[in-house]
């Protein structure tokens, strides 16, 4: 049995559900893996720990992570993308005229630090947003609640639910619906690990896909129990809501995933995403972006029965 | 007319030491009263009680009218280490709100009186032990108090300086009519300066003798007088008795 450590990008939540599922229901074990999940958090930098070889697999957020590795000559690549749509949303108060991205122009938007160099640049470029709209976001929606004109960033399955429970039924705008085409929730691994243990990587990817399949369509109870144990702030209602919206919006299963299986990635989509980042000035055009990923382990139709 | 009446005064320190027990003493206005007694018998404590810096554990302390303005020389120099000699000496005046020019003038005069001219700008750590004590004396003189309390002020001084300051003090007292409470270990000094001398015995401290020494002149002549020699003899004797009593 192979012991591996997998680092996530935040505290345990439904967006990590498939991985917890695979641990909880023994899928990884069936694939000959013993997986330990380490939670990330606002200041945890698992990317560096992966580069340093302290963890074996890392959950990448958006596609930028993989490109950052390439830009800094770090031999790490993405081998699967669990989400076909990035669940990044902007949410606004209802009845304030907010309906789509264009209507948010000029309004104050609460953005976290990392937003500033990723989707905010995309928003500026495609929607003409300006820097004076930015307000700091420290993962507390309280300032949003206090000001009806405020817009805030969020995650499809989290903030809308939180805000709703606090009494504001928000307008939710999914960036992916407006052409924000980054891959998301990728599985990242070091290049030499891929070369030395391709079978381990393959098994991890396959088992994770099965885990996700079960989590979204089977009985998520065990995974949810594990998530609640790791993060006491989670409750059943929140988790159920998250699973519902992940399914409704085809976050995991849409586009290529419908034909190639969960985790699907294609050269064309990577190129399109990369070109977008070059256009907004994040990366130089000559970056060897193809080194950022490998299609070796996905697109095999795993889980499509 | 008595300025201060002390009756049955006792003091016990938190640690348990009974420093004073049943002290009765009346201080007359204009008196020059010396207090003598063996080391540790409670002289400083008595002065501190009079100054109101300690509260007696028993007995009473009554001023005739308002408490007069006090000038004080503690047993230790007690100078502000960050302040110059001039500022230290001028302190009581400053606290009284005297204007700068005026208090500088008065402080200069007091500094001159104790023989420290030229050291106005020095800070205490640049002074010798005796010089520090003289700054403290100058400070007590500078504000022209009504009541002067001095705790072995001249102990750290050479004999010639000491005699000179004895004379300065006597002159001040004679001229201004102030009341002086003077702790000293020198029988000669007390006999030379005082109009009355009380002797204390230790553990717990109490008064054992009081000697009147009516005299109205001073200078070398007085030191040669029979009066002076007699006073010295009497005081020495009661001091010896007080200590024998303690042993």
């Amino acid at each position: 049995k192979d012991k591996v450590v997998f680092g996530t990008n935040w505290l345990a939540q439904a967006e990590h559900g498939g991985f917890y599922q695979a641990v909880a229901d023994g899928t990884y074990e069936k694939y000959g893996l013993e997986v330990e999940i380490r939670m990330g958090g606002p200041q945890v930098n698992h990317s560096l720990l992966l580069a340093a070889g302290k963890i074996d697999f890392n959950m990448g957020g958006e596609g930028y992570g993989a490109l950052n590795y390439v830009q800094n000559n770090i031999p790490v690549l993405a081998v699967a993308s669990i989400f076909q749509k990035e669940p990044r949303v902007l949410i606004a108060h209802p009845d304030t005229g907010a309906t789509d991205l264009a209507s948010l122009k000029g309004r104050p938007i609460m953005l976290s630090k990392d937003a500033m160099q990723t989707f905010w640049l995309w928003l500026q470029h495609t929607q003409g947003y300006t820097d004076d709209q930015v307000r700091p976001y420290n993962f507390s929606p309280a300032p949003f609640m206090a000001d009806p004109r405020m817009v805030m960033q969020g995650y499809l399955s989290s903030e809308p639910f939180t805000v709703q429970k606090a009494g504001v039924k928000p307008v939710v705008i999914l960036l992916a619906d407006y052409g924000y085409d980054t891959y998301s929730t990728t599985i990242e691994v070091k290049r030499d690990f891929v070369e030395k243990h391709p079978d381990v990587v393959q098994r991890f990817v396959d088992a994770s896909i099965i885990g996700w399949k079960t989590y979204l369509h089977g009985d998520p109870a065990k995974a949810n129990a594990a998530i609640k144990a790791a993060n006491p702030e989670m409750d059943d209602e929140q988790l159920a809501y998250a699973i519902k919206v992940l399914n409704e919006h085809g976050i995991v299963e849409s586009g290529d995933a419908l034909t190639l299986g969960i985790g699907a990635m294609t050269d064309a989509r990577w190129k399109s995403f990369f070109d977008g980042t070059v256009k907004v000035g994040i990366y130089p055009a000559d970056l060897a972006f193809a080194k950022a990923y490998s299609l070796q382990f996905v697109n095999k139709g795993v889980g499509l029965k | 007319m008595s300025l201060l009446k002390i009756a049955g005064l006792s003091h016990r320190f938190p640690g348990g030491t009974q420093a004073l027990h049943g002290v009765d003493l009346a201080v007359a206005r204009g008196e020059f009263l010396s207090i003598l007694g063996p080391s540790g018998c409670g002289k400083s404590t008595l002065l501190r009680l009079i100054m109101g810096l300690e509260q007696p554990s028993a007995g009473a302390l009554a001023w005739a009218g308002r408490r007069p303005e006090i000038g004080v020389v503690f047993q230790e120099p007690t100078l502000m280490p960050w302040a110059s000699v001039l500022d230290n000496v001028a302190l009581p005046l400053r606290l009284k709100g005297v204007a700068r020019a005026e208090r500088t003038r008065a402080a200069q005069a007091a500094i001159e009186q104790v023989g420290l001219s030229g050291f106005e700008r020095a800070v205490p750590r640049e002074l010798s032990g005796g010089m520090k004590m003289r700054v403290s004396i100058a400070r007590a003189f500078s504000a022209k108090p009504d009541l002067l309390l001095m705790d072995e002020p001249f102990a750290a001084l050479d004999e010639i300086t000491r005699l000179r300051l004895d004379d300065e003090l006597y002159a001040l007292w004679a001229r201004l009519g102030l009341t002086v409470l003077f702790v000293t270990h020198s029988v000669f000094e007390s006999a030379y300066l005082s109009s009355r001398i009380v002797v204390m015995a230790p553990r717990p401290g109490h008064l054992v003798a009081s000697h009147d020494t009516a005299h109205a002149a001073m200078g070398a002549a007085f030191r040669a007088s029979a009066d002076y020699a007699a006073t010295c003899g009497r005081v020495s004797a009661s001091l010896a008795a007080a200590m024998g009593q303690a042993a």
Partner: protein
Amino acid sequence: MSHAQRLAPLLVALVVLGAWEAMVRINDLPPYILPAPSVIAASLWNDRVILASSLLVTLQITLAALVTSAVTSLLLAVVFVQSRWIERSLYPYAVILQVTPIVAIAPLVLIYVEDPFAVMLVCATIVAFFPILSNTMFGLRSVDPGLEDLFRLQGAGRLQTLFLLRLPSALPHFLVGLRIAGGLALIGAVVAEFVSSTTAGGATGLAWRIIEAGQRLNVPRMFAALALIAVAGIAIFGLLTALSTLSLRRWHDSARRRQER
């Protein structure tokens, strides 16, 4: 200390909390903006199990960090005052440690240290050590020069001077540093938790409760966690103050009982 003097802080606390409660009620502030004390108290009680176990984790790190930083800064201070050369050459590194944001170096620490407890200990210690170091050095320097001369003259060795003269002289200052460090160790523990990754299922401290509760807009619970931190901070400070008073009362001016005017 009189009875009234003991009660005063409690009275003030009641007034503060009452005013807070009244303000929230009168302005009808929603809990996610500012929860009323009563709401926070309710949350404290309802979530007592979660909060208590988190508090325990945070306190463990705090105490470990306080002890570690006290010991290391005492040693460092002793080394530094040995000579101006050593001080001038090495003190800058202590300053660097003090000003380096934990958030920035934690990932690097994580690369080299496996054990999460050790990581948090290192981080919290880095946050807490500097005031003890500075104050102790000041204390070791402020030795009565007369006593220093005496020791030199009586042929005291370096170690003897250290233990019989310098350390006792520095004790009051060390204790002031310790009291400052108590609070810093606590925030250090909280911050350290932020930055070190935790294994799922592992115990998590108050920091996570705050972040997560904040994000979930469970502001009363966030305040409950903050209240626990505040109480822990006051308790640590109180204990260290008592320790300080006890050990200095007999001889140091700062701990002298004074008549109130």
